[in-house]
């Protein structure tokens, strides 16, 4: 009764909705003021420095070369083009790194719980040593220490005079399509479809009759046979352009520049230590009782892994794995430290220096990474919803 006697103002002050609205309004106003101050500061600063804003620079010619380009590029192309060259190089090294770090990481993680004591200890030391050393340092180590021990082009290490390894990088034959290539490709596609059909047939037969079929080995057989036999019956439809030593360096073929190799190796090894731990804890997170139940039912070791342990471990492993892949992609920006032409190095580095358009360029670069991050976390949310174990 007494409370009702309070006047309107007090009632408003103690109303939680009003309070919350007021508080939010204050925060919003503060934020706006902050942003406006910054924007006006930026405007005056740019003015006094005589820098014009806008994205016009993207269509001006770049005038510098890039040591590795996946799309056609030379000095006469625009700054806009350098953005895409850099972006593609970032994606290239990230994709390479993701594949190899996964393979190595799974191996390390499985070794970590192997029945073999020596293997277990070595993989533990591997993880503990390499994940406690900054990635940048590891990149420098590969680039300035390991790769520097490679010979000069004239004394290249070689595998059958087709692949050459030297201080300038790795040089390999480049496959080129010849006549019959289309037929060969068709054969290969047909073989892949065949393998799919075989898999479905085997599964249906297993469901209907219970008989099992060695699908994996049969598929490998079919694919290898098609690749090899098809190659000859279609009249060798792929020719190779071999690298050749001309003067001081190799010409022709395909090459991996040393910057790519150093960055790729370092990213692979550093990330593999994290993936190894994820794999280990993923497998160990599947309760011991599950293994026992499988054994009591008479499932063999392979069936136990494939049907029970891995499907459960996967749920635990995939979200942290994805965030490692994301980390790897972001970490690939360390490329700039050794001059691998990735997005940050080419665009936020060289292009920024040449044009001085700091705001635009840094924003664009950040947006690229932000987009990738948001896409990946959207995927992760979707995945988590899909596979969450159903509990009461």
């Amino acid at each position, binding site marked *: 009764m007494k409370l009702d006697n309070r006047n309107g103002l007090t009632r408003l002050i103690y109303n939680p909705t009003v309070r919350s609205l007021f508080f939010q309004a204050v925060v919003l106003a503060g934020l706006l003021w902050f942003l406006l101050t910054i924007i006006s500061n930026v405007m005056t600063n740019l003015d006094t420095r005589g820098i014009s804003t806008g994205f016009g620079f993207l269509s001006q010619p770049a005038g510098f070369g890039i040591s590795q380009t996946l799309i056609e590029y030379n000095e006469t192309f625009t700054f806009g083009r350098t953005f895409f060259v850099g972006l593609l190089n970032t994606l290239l090294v990230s994709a390479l790194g993701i594949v190899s770090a996964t393979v190595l990481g799974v191996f390390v993680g499985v070794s970590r719980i192997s029945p073999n*004591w020596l*293997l277990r200890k*070595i993989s533990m030391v591997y993880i503990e040593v390499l994940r406690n050393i*900054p990635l940048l340092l590891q990149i420098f180590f590969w680039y*300035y220490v390991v790769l520097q021990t490679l010979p000069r082009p004239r004394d290249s290490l070689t595998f059958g005079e087709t692949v050459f390894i030297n201080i300038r990088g790795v040089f390999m034959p480049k496959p080129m399509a010849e006549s019959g290539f289309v037929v060969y490709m068709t054969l290969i596609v047909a073989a892949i479809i065949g393998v799919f059909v075989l898999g479905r047939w085997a599964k249906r037969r297993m469901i209907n009759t219970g008989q099992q079929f060695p699908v994996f080995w049969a598929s490998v057989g079919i694919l290898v046979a098609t690749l090899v036999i098809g190659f000859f019956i279609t009249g060798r439809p792929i020719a190779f352009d071999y690298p050749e030593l001309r003067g001081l360096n190799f010409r022709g073929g395909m090459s991996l520049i040393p910057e790519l190799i150093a960055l790729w190796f370092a990213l692979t090894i550093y990330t593999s230590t994290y993936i190894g731990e994820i794999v280990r804890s993923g497998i160990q997170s599947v309760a011991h009782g599950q293994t026992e139940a499988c054994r009591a039912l008479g499932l063999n070791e392979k069936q136990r892994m494939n049907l029970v342990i891995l499907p459960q471990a996967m749920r635990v492993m995939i979200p942290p794995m994805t965030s490692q892949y994301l980390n790897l992609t972001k970490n690939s*920006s360390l490329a700039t430290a050794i001059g691998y032409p990735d997005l940050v190095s080419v665009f936020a580095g060289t292009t920024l220096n040449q044009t001085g358009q700091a705001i635009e360029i840094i924003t664009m670069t950040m947006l690229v990474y*932000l987009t990738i991050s948001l896409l990946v976390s959207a995927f992760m949310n979707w995945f988590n919803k899909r596979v969450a174990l159903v509990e009461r």
Partner: protein
Amino acid sequence: MDKFTPIESRPAPLVEVGVIGWMRKNLFSSIPNTLVTLFTAYMLWIVLVPFINWAFITSDWFGDSRQDCTSGGACWVFVTVRWNLFMYGFYPEDSYWRPNLAFILLIAILVWLSVPNLPYKKWVGIAAVTIYPVVAFVLLYGGFGLDIVPTHRWGGLMLTLVLALVGIVVAIPIGILLALGRRSEMPVIKMVCVIFIEFWRGVPLITILFMASVMLPLFFAGGTDADKLMRALIGIVMFQSAYMAEVVRGGLQALSKGQFEGADALGLSYWQKMNLVVLPQALKIMIPGIVNTLISLFKDTSLIVIIGILDILGMVRQALSDPAWLGYPAEGYLFAAFMFWIFCFSMSRYSIYLEDRLNTGHRN
């Protein structure tokens, strides 16, 4: 029915125990296992023996110049000659006692906090985040009668530690606010916090450092050239608080809903609830997570060499480009790696130890 007679325990058959039993079980339990053992042992042998030989047996440790490296192995003289540079950067030599003292104080505080059963933990902790930073700053930078040492003369391991510690100490309170904001029921607050967190977490640190070094000066009126180290620190703190916010969020989520409801039922206000009930519990759960972010931050500080600040890695790289000492990149990088490793590894062990202690604490 027979009369029951108890049987004395007999020792296990030899295959089960002793060195042989252990080796059979762990190294030679099957043919593939034996092959793996032999192969790994061989690989270990061919890698480790030459390395130990190079690094320790045929190495040189002391001297003044590269002429003192005569044994053919590692030339650690490269490191010992520059020890002070690697530790303190270009800090004036007669003032080394200042960073040393700051470091000793830090160690004392950490030991106090981490040894179980010492009294006044709370007060020491509060002093560590309030008084200590001021004292350390005065010691390092100067003032109050001490000569000013401008930040561009700071460097080496000292700078690495400064960056990591300032980053973490400033990031913790911001991270807590962000995490609370993210859980808030006020849409504007929640939105602002989510955008802030996701933005800094979504971009690589190197772009943030670029931003701090080329964009930040434009943000200040009159284009003031704020201290370069200061700008880098702002970038690092932003980055770090976003990650810290996620750690705090994890800690808050680990707390059961009953705790929040219990506090509400007692009539505590929002901040009372947080300070008296929620944060004291959540912080305890979060300590391992905080240590883990500290480890990442410690490693990430090495990136500032890219914008030209000379932490320990930067000092090593500068030494490597010294014309009188060309050709020792292996020694230089291994030394830097070892320094980083020692810190990160001990921190990670400590966080594991804490986690174990917390786990057992929960069970009891």
